[in-house]
């Protein structure tokens, strides 16, 4: 049997050094290294410097000994110069925080936390909800807690996946959004289908592609059977043991207290600290209010800002995914700085068809709601990549490009996107202006992130304990 020699250059290895400030010498060294790796330069192509796909991992950083960002940081993985920046799993230690203090003193820039009359906030409920949030036994085969998708150090979202993966590896069609500041959301989920945090829990608990519990009763019985919860519900709920109502109340209490404000932007805008953000970020905010029209949907108030109008809009993205043509082949990273092309036909052999997603239409059945999604808050947005309902945008730059081009008004065949928001129009932003906008978006990180992560780490992860 003959051994086939390499076909030329379907596999590209691309080097992007500009963004890493490597000198030309370093760049050459990196490239040579990659060439060595293949023993062959048939398929080596040096990419133009400007080209480069972004990373959702953000630049992970450690504050107070706490990693903010993925413990397995992949920033720069698109380049041959990528270096790991990993932290040990065994370093998951933290300090319990006094989370409830924000109840009466919300951080600068945020309104008072709305508390349902029938679920007053207590320390007992927060602690109980936190324990539940990290308990993997709340799933059918003990592998999924809420926190497996809403990962504390990854902005209570997941940097590691565009779309969530659940029970037995089943696909989800959407990106796991952050839990920060969900206290203020009037409607939950990307398609705004849910009303309260108390109700919301049953979505993930009972979905067969999330935690896959088979009935409400099964969930309640399972919690009853876990002896480490003995007495906890009774203490938090006036002697009542776990039931479908107070399970929701406990989980909601923990999530509701995870508000995050007093960001550099808040200090500058509401606190009048002139040096709290850079001139570039100030220019970015001017664009956000002005030329960019962002503020029309990502609202900013006189005293507080949630950066969402709570309404639903079509930005063009969902339409493009649904009605656009899938390319015959896609470029794919197969190792740091190394790409290959995968054919659509090949992907179809090893994968199921993508799940449909027509947005709010699925909730209202109104064709005017096709491809509409709820405006997300932009607080902590630098910590919650990848972006949009399907996680398909890995960086803020990609999101701004979508707005700058005026959304997606028609597909390749000219079929129109009739439900796109009239507020989405070509913006004519220059590259510098886009960067200014990004600089502004990066000023929206709350001041309590490392504290909240540390508090989360102080809570043990619930796993099966063998009862011999």
């Amino acid at each position, binding site marked *: *049997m003959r*051994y086939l020699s*390499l*076909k030329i*250059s*379907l596999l590209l290895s691309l080097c992007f050094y500009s963004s890493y400030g490597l000198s030309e010498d370093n760049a050459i060294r990196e490239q040579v290294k990659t060439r060595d*790796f*293949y*023993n062959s330069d048939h*398929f080596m192509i040096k990419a133009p410097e400007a080209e480069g796909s972004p990373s*959702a*991992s953000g630049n992970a950083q450690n504050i107070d000994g706490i990693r903010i960002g993925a*413990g*397995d940081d992949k920033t720069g993985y698109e380049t041959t*110069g990528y*270096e*790991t*920046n*990993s*932290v*040990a*799993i*065994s*370093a*998951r230690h933290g300090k319990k925080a006094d989370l409830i203090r924000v109840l009466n003193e919300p951080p600068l820039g945020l309104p008072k936390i709305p508390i349902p009359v029938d679920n007053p906030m207590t320390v007992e409920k927060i602690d109980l909800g936190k324990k539940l949030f990290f308990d*993997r*036994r709340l799933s*059918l*085969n*003990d592998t999924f807690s809420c926190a*497996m998708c809403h*990962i504390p150090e*990854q902005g209570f979202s997941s940097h*590691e*996946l565009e779309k969530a*993966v659940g029970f*037995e*590896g089943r696909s989800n069609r959407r990106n796991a959004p952050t839990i920060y500041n969900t206290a203020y959301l009037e409607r939950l989920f990307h398609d705004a289908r849910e009303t309260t945090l108390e109700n919301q829990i049953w979505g993930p608990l009972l979905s067969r592609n999330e935690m896959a519990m088979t009935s409400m009763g099964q969930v309640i019985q*399972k919690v009853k059977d876990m002896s480490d919860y003995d007495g906890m519900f009774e203490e938090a709920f006036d002697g009542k043991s776990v039931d479908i109502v107070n399970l929701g109340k406990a989980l909601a209490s923990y999530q509701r207290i995870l508000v995050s404000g007093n960001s550099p932007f808040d200090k500058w805008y509401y606190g009048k600290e002139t040096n709290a953000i850079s001139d570039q970020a100030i220019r970015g905010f001017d664009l956000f209010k002005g030329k960019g029209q962002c503020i029309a949907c990502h609202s900013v108030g006189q005293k507080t800002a949630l950066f969402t109008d709570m309404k639903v809009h079509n930005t063009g993205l969902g339409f493009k995914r649904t009605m656009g043509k899938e390319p015959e082949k*896609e470029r*794919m*990273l*197969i*190792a*740091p700085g190394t790409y*290959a092309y*995968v054919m659509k036909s090949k*992907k179809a*052999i*090893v*994968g*199921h068809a*993508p799940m449909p997603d027509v947005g709010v239409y699925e909730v209202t059945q109104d064709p005017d709601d096709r491809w509409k999604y709820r405006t997300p808050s932009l607080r902590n947005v630098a910590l919650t990549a990848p972006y949009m309902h399907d996680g398909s945008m*890995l960086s803020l730059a990609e999101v701004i490009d979508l707005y700058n081009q005026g959304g997606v008004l028609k597909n390749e065949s000219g079929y129109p996107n009739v439900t796109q928001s009239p507020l989405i129009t070509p913006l004519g932003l220059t590259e510098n202006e886009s960067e200014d906008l990004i600089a502004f978006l990066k000023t929206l990180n709350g001041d309590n992130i490392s504290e909240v992560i540390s508090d989360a780490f102080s809570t043990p992860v619930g*796993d*099966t*304990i*063998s*009862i*011999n």
Partner: protein
Amino acid sequence: MNIKKFISKPLAVLAPFVAASVLATNPVMADETCMSPYMVKIVGQEDFVYVWTLGVEGLGDGQDKMVTVDVNPKSEHYGKVINSESVGGRNEAHHSGFTDDRKFLWAGGLDSNKIFIFDVHTDPAAPKLVKTIDDFVSKTGGVVGPHTTYALPGRMIVTGLSNNQDHGGRTALVEYTNGGEYIDTYWMPTDDNLQGAHKGGQFADGYGYDIRALPAKNVMLTSSFTGWSNYMMDFGAMLGDAEAMKRFGNTMVIWDLHTRKPKQVLDVPGAPLEIRCAWKPENNYCFTTTALTSQLVLLNEENDVWKATNVADVGNPADIPLPVDISINSSDTMLWVNTFLDGKTRGFDITDPHNPKQVYEKQIGNQVNMVSSSWDGKRLYYTTSLLGNWDKKAGDNDQFIKLYHWDGTEMTEQFAIDFQAEKLGRAHQMRFGAYSLYGKTAKVEQAKNNIVAMSK
């Protein structure tokens, strides 16, 4: 209510190991050439192949099982399934490995994190589930995805693939006694805690996958795959998920076998998977292949430092054939490399380990994963399943075990068992069994020619 309460069944009383007069004269020649060097070996005709099989929802009883195939040509059941032991649940059955005395077979579930321990010596024709370790994650401090179960003297080393914090690739090695008592967790070195290991290149990702030991060098080698989210997810969805594609291992770690401390972290980009080490005492090297970049990689020591060198392409890397299982022959001259996506097996002449040459290629099916070789290299068994959600869909989803005879130049198929037609599931890891290992004989005169060697 469904919290599975684990009931420990006592391990069967160990039958005294009777290996007869043919014991242990040929320590380096070995069968199933991927086994631990500490393992008792079958160097003659194997009687059984134990296939760790993934349950498929809607097929048969829908759960994972240890399937026993009779492979002794003198048996009336040759080429037939003779036993199947279901374990409950779909656990993402994956790899399995014997204890060093070869009396028990440990089989891991990458999803449920359970380890199923089968007694294979009381009745080698019918392995029996005798113990289930169901607290792997909590005992180990958060390791997820028990993968390779590898025998050291009196001990089992289990490699993890993931963790309970982000379902990513950072993980650890875990040590158990042969009886299933947890001993310790050894985390893979990460940048913040290299644990004294030397990071030779750009990567210290903390990922894990396979493990092999070279006792003469006091070395263990580990490779790196990916975390739970990726190995569990739909393969097509993963290829389209640009973040998921960044979460593959790019490292191998050299460990001190005695102290279990990492010594060196090597850059091996593209997800290095199976590790196979040469058998001859003078050949202190191993091979791996990288799943995504399709490289055959040589690992050897030069001036007391371990090196990883790409020594050949596997197929056309641009086509991403996806090298999966590999198998080295006992004379260190051939390496079989399976590629999942094109369903081929490729034979590389590795007489010169720095210069492997592909000398043979054969289509095994629409997809192929594992290959297991008899000690003499004449019998090669193939199975098909890679991972429950990575296997090809619909008509391309072949699920079988096939036996081929290899005469040095050509392969000829002997039998095939269709695991879907038999309502069994997805056929994955294969391990060999033989009566002769336990001083037993079958009713038929089949084990006569078997020789048992103990290589220590």
